[in-house]
């Protein structure tokens, strides 16, 4: 489901991030431009060290670029001070990380509620919203569990619910399946796919090619730059039976 509402939700132009200087200069991000429109799922793939996590941090305002510009939800990130940037992140961006980053001392439901409470939403509204989201990710019966009592896939689903609690314009996910076994990966892929269908804008950086199944666009990254882009086309290639060895 792609909404064609002219302005992209997220836009980057000539983005650069360098570390060090002189001979030790590292170009982690080297002239990257990107438009993400509402409802779109974009996956950025590449080997570890290609700069994809750095890119995600720049797009989400967790790190500052050394060149170029990022616009998020109508704001130019370079114009914002730290406080305004933190506020923008809280209100407009949902983050999902490889290592889940849940609070171990809080239940699944409390983890989901927390960002809403920090954003000043009433405890009752936050609780209701958390219950809705846990239902959406299929974990209503685990709401009172502590993270340690949940499987990796369940923890990541809680983290996705938490990322959605502020109704973000965009969810940025960094290797969301990186710590998961095959079965849990399928669970998380199903969840991401259902968010996509529901119109959530998503940017996922990953080395896991299975994410391709949920993405509208797949961008390959190498040495800090985009090198290739493919768009999802309708239908299947009809080649699955050949891949399974059923025909030659």
């Amino acid at each position, binding site marked *: 489901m792609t909404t064609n509402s002219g302005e992209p939700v997220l836009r980057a132009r000539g983005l650069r991030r360098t570390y060090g200087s002189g001979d030790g200069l590292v170009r982690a991000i080297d002239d990257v431009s990107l438009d993400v429109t509402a409802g779109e799922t974009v996956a950025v793939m590449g080997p570890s060290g290609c700069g994809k996590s750095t890119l995600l941090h720049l797009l989400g305002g967790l790190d500052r670029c050394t060149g170029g510009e990022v616009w998020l939800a109508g704001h130019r990130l370079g114009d914002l001070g730290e406080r305004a940037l933190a506020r923008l992140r809280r209100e407009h961006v949902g983050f999902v990380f490889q290592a889940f980053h849940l609070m171990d001392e809080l239940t699944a439901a409390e983890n989901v509620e927390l960002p809403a409470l920090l954003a000043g939403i009433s405890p009752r509204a936050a609780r209701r919203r958390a219950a809705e989201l846990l239902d959406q990710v299929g974990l209503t019966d685990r709401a009172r569990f502590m993270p340690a009592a949940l499987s990796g896939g369940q923890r990541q689903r809680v983290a996705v619910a938490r990322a959605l609690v502020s109704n973000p314009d965009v969810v940025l996910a960094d290797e969301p399946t990186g710590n998961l076994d095959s079965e849990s990966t399928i669970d998380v892929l199903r969840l991401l796919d259902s968010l996509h269908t529901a119109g959530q804008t998503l940017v996922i950086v990953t080395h896991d090619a299975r994410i391709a199944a949920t993405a509208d666009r797949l961008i390959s990254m190498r*040495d800090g730059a985009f090198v290739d882009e493919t768009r999802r086309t309708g239908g299947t290639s009809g080649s699955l039976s050949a891949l399974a060895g059923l025909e030659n």
Partner: protein
Amino acid sequence: MRQEVVLALLAKEPSHGYELRGRLRQALGPLGETMNDGQIYVILSRLEKAGLVAAEESAGLPDRPDRKVYELTADGQERVAGWLTEVSWPKPDLAEFHLKLIAAAAAGLADPLAIVDAQRRELLRRLRDAQRAALTESESSAAGLLLEGIVLRLQADLRWLEACERTWTGRRSKR
């Protein structure tokens, strides 16, 4: 082995059959040891009949009965160019792909990284189809297991492409 491999090796420069065999051996390492010595000449004579290579008698060495120097014809050049851009799957011939990269780089015909990118696009398309099919299967479905097998194999192929990409990126920056 596909005859296009031999054809592409000739794209670098006109060569004797034994030179081609040597380059193949070098490119394939231990896998090349099982190659039948006569195979390359069989392929060369087929290519000659098909008008894809032209052979010219040359003053070879006394201990080398093989005096023919083979050269690509215009049709041969065209066939090589077509083969380089061709993406073959699901019957992945790893040696063929490997040799394609080597031949393309040696003759300066195509950027090996562009060939890797094209191959990756194709694999990703197939992986996406397989994974989408797996997502729509119910968790208890037996077909899910088969689809997982396809996905895992494609992932392994993609990891090898990553290795190809790393190696050829390194070689390019050394040049």
